[in-house]
């Protein structure tokens, strides 16, 4: 794993390292099994086309999970993901790049916790934010580590 991220390393405006994914239909089926979401819209192309979509859709909650992966990769085992939210604004299709991105929006200390708020989103190949959201993480602090040592 990468080295631990600390509160002091983070400034407002910095970007979270992007996580590039290209979901396949196979991955959607894996997700259906793991999550228990067997809605046909995500693996039956005829069904999806009857609903007016060109292809099956990437599950919204899979995108939630991928944004979660981007965040847990970034904060490492020393960080805590407190809040994760996103809206399934746009549709994403298998075989297309889905890039998870984020940016630090705010940082502050409250009740001894070193809190970082982020804007997060997924981007489609057209650069559109298909899944905008927010996350709150708690990071370890170098100052606190020193005090406890």
């Amino acid at each position, binding site marked *: *794993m990468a080295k631990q991220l600390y509160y002091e390393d983070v400034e407002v405006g910095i970007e979270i390292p992007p996580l590039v*994914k290209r979901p396949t239909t196979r*991955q959607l089926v*894996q*997700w259906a*099994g*793991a*999550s*228990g*979401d067997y809605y046909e819209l995500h693996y039956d192309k005829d069904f999806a086309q009857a*609903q007016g979509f060109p292809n099956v859709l990437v*599950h*919204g*909650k*899979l995108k*939630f*999970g*991928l944004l*979660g*992966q981007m*965040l*847990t*990769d970034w904060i490492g*085992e*020393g960080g*805590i*993901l*407190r*809040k*994760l*939210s*996103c*809206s*399934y604004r746009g549709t994403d299709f298998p075989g297309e790049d889905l890039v998870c991105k984020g940016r630090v929006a705010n940082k502050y200390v409250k009740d001894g916790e070193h809190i970082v708020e982020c804007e997060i989103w997924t981007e489609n190949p057209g650069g559109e934010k298909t899944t905008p*959201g927010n996350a709150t993480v708690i990071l370890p602090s170098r100052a606190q580590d020193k005090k406890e040592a």
Partner: protein
Amino acid sequence: MQQGSIITDEMKEQLGVEGTPTILEVEKGHIRMMAEALGDPNPLWQDEEYAKKTRYGGIIAPPALLCNARAGTGRGVQMKSPFLRALAGGDELEYYLPVRPGDVITSVSKIAEYNEREGRRGKMLFTIIETTYKNQRGEVVATSRSTYISY
């Protein structure tokens, strides 16, 4: 509002009513399936030896574990809609405690809100469902607020 609301009295009666609980027995195999479906190689979800040396002292579940049908997110309630087409609108999770293999998570949902809006495809119904997840010790490990759209 033209021709009255699509939100019926029967639907309103369901507001705040706790639905049937969903019980999820968290297993390592399930966590691994979820990590594989995400394509997330983080050893904290899978490698016991690695995870033992972290502050968690063992494997924990990725955030996605509590945001899906199997975990009972938005499930067990009497969700009614006059429309046939449905989409997930969004999810908001707050996490309080880690979830580990062996935990038994009981989730209970309730319909918190209905909103109707005029969309590109005509009238749309937004149903917001709140879910509380507790472990076998009765501790709240997470809460969620999920939006479902029908049109």
